[in-house]
C-alpha cells in the first residue's frame, strides 16, 4: 500500500511551527487580499532571505492610496508618495520575539485548542486547515490554511467566539521562488525629492520592576508582559509608557499617558477589524488598552490599571 505523504494528517502545532519557519526562510512573491469589517484591500508582498541571512520584505498597496513598506532586517521604511514623505524606523516586531517563552507552542497550547479540521485549496495550492480555538471568551480564535508543500500561510481568519470572521488575509496568487531579483525589493517611486524622517535611534528602555508604578490588576490567564517601552506619540506632549503583553498568539498593549492640558478620553471603545481599543482616564493619566482580543477584554484590562506606590 502506498501512502501519499501529502494526505498524512500532521500535528497542527508542528505545522504551525513549520509555517512560522517557512514565512521567514523562503523567498516568495504574492498578492493577497486583506478583508476587514466590510472592506477589502489588495496588496503585494515580496519576501527574500539571502545567503547571509539578511531578510528583505516589500509590501505594496494595490488599492486605494499608494503606500509601500520596505523592510531590510530590522529597518523599516514607510513611503507615502502622494505627500512625498518617507520615514525610516527600526522594526519593533523583530525585537518582540519573546525569548522568555522556552517553547512557544507548548505555552500557547494551554490557552488554545489546536485542531486539524480539513483540507482546502487556496491560490491554486493544496492546504491543511487548522482551527485554533481559545479556551475562554477573553480571546479570539484563528483559522489557518497552510500550504502542504511549502508550509507557507495561504489564508487566515481571525474569529470571535461566535465564529464570525473579523479579519481575513488570503493569497490570490503566491509564487515560491529560488531567487528574487533585488530590484523587486526597491521602492517603485523616485524618492529624490522626498522629505526623509529618520527615526532609528537606539534608545532602549529597561523596566525596573521594583519601581513599577502602573499595573493591571486583571489580565486574562496566560498573558505575560513581554516588553516595556516609552514611546513618543504624535499629538502627545510627553512620551507614553507602553506595556506589551502576549499569550503567544494575541498581543495586548497598555498605554499610560500623562495628560497635559489635553482633554481626557473617557470610556471610549473603538475597533479596526479584529483590533479593539478602549480608553479611560484616571488620576490625570490616559489609560488605553489595544489588542486583537474582544472589546470586553480591553475594557476590563484598562479599567483595572492602577498606580501602585
Amino acid at each position: 500500500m502506498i501512502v501519499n505523504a501529502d494526505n498524512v494528517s500532521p500535528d497542527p502545532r508542528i505545522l504551525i511551527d513549520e509555517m512560522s519557519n517557512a514565512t521567514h526562510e523562503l523567498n516568495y512573491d504574492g498578492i493577497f487580499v486583506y478583508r476587514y469589517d466590510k472592506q477589502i484591500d489588495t496588496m503585494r508582498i515580496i519576501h527574500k532571505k539571502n545567503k547571509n541571512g539578511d531578510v528583505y520584505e516589500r509590501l505594496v498597496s494595490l488599492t486605494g492610496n499608494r503606500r509601500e513598506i520596505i523592510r531590510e532586517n530590522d529597518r523599516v521604511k514607510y513611503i507615502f508618495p502622494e505627500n512625498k514623505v518617507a520615514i525610516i524606523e527600526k522594526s519593533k516586531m523583530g525585537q518582540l520575539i519573546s525569548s522568555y517563552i522556552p517553547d512557544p507552542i507548548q505555552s500557547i497550547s494551554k490557552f488554545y485548542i489546536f485542531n486539524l479540521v480539513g483540507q482546502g485549496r487556496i491560490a491554486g495550492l493544496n492546504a491543511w486547515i487548522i482551527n485554533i480555538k481559545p479556551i475562554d471568551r477573553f480571546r479570539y480564535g484563528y483559522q489557518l490554511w497552510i500550504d502542504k508543500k511549502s508550509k507557507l500561510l495561504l489564508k487566515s481568519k481571525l474569529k470571535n467566539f461566535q465564529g464570525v470572521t473579523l479579519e481575513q488575509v488570503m493569497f490570490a496568487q503566491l509564487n515560491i521562488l529560488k531567487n528574487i531579483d533585488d530590484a523587486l525589493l526597491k521602492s517603485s517611486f523616485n524618492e529624490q525629492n522626498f522629505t526623509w524622517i529618520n527615526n532609528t535611534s537606539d534608545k532602549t528602555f529597561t523596566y525596573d520592576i521594583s519601581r513599577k508604578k502602573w499595573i493591571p490588576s486583571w489580565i486574562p490567564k496566560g498573558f505575560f508582559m513581554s516588553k516595556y517601552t516609552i514611546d513618543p506619540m504624535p499629538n502627545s506632549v510627553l512620551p507614553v509608557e507602553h506595556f506589551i503583553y502576549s499569550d503567544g498568539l494575541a498581543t495586548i498593549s497598555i498605554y499610560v499617558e500623562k495628560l497635559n492640558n489635553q482633554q481626557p478620553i473617557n470610556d471610549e471603545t473603538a475597533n479596526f477589524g479584529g483590533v479593539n481599543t478602549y480608553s479611560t482616564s484616571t488620576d490625570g493619566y490616559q489609560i488605553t488598552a489595544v489588542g486583537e482580543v474582544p472589546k470586553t477584554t480591553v475594557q476590563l484590562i484598562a479599567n483595572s490599571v492602577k498606580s501602585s506606590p
Partner: protein
Amino acid sequence: MQKDNNEALSAFVDGEHSKNKDILEDLVHDDVMREVWKRYHLIRDCLRGNLSEKIHNNFISEVNQHLENEPTIISNNKTKQFKLEPVIGFAIAASVAAVAILGIQNKNNIPPIELKDTIVMDENIIDSQFETFSFPEIQISPAAVEQSTQFNSITQQRLNNYLINHSKYKNNIKMNSVLPYARIVTIESKE
C-alpha cells in the same frame, strides 16, 4: 444586595450599562461575580442554540415562547469605528517630525483621495464552511450589528495613534507577519 448585583450583571451581559465602572470593578475583583458572569453567558448560549451537539436543547423552544411574552430590551451599546483620515506622520514616533509632516501636508493642501478602487461589502463575513469552532452556524441579524459613531477628529487621531503603534509591536510572527503591516498600510490609506 446580591440580587441587585445579579440584575446589573445580567443587563451588562446584554450590552447595557457598558460604562458602569462598578460592575467592571466587581468583575475584576470578585470571583463569585465572575462565576455568575460565566453562567449568564452559558444561559444565553443555550437560548440561542449555541451549544455543542452533545447538549440536549429541547427546552429552548419553550423558553423562547416565554421570552416572546416579555418586553424587548433594546441594547444601545455602540462601538465607535474610526473614520480615518489620510494623515501621514502618525506612524512617526517623534512629535517634532509629526509637526513637520503636518506642516508639509498643509502647505501642499492635498485634497483627500477618493478610494474608487476599494470594494465595499454589504454583508458581514460569514462563510459556509468551517465557520464556527464548536458552535453551530448562526446568522447575524442587522439589528445585532453595532452602530458606528463618529469621533471628533482629535479623539480619533489619538486613538488612531495607539492602534498604529500597537500594530508595529504585534508579536504574531508565528501566525502572520504580513497582517500587522497590512493594517498599517490600510489605516494610512483610509480617508
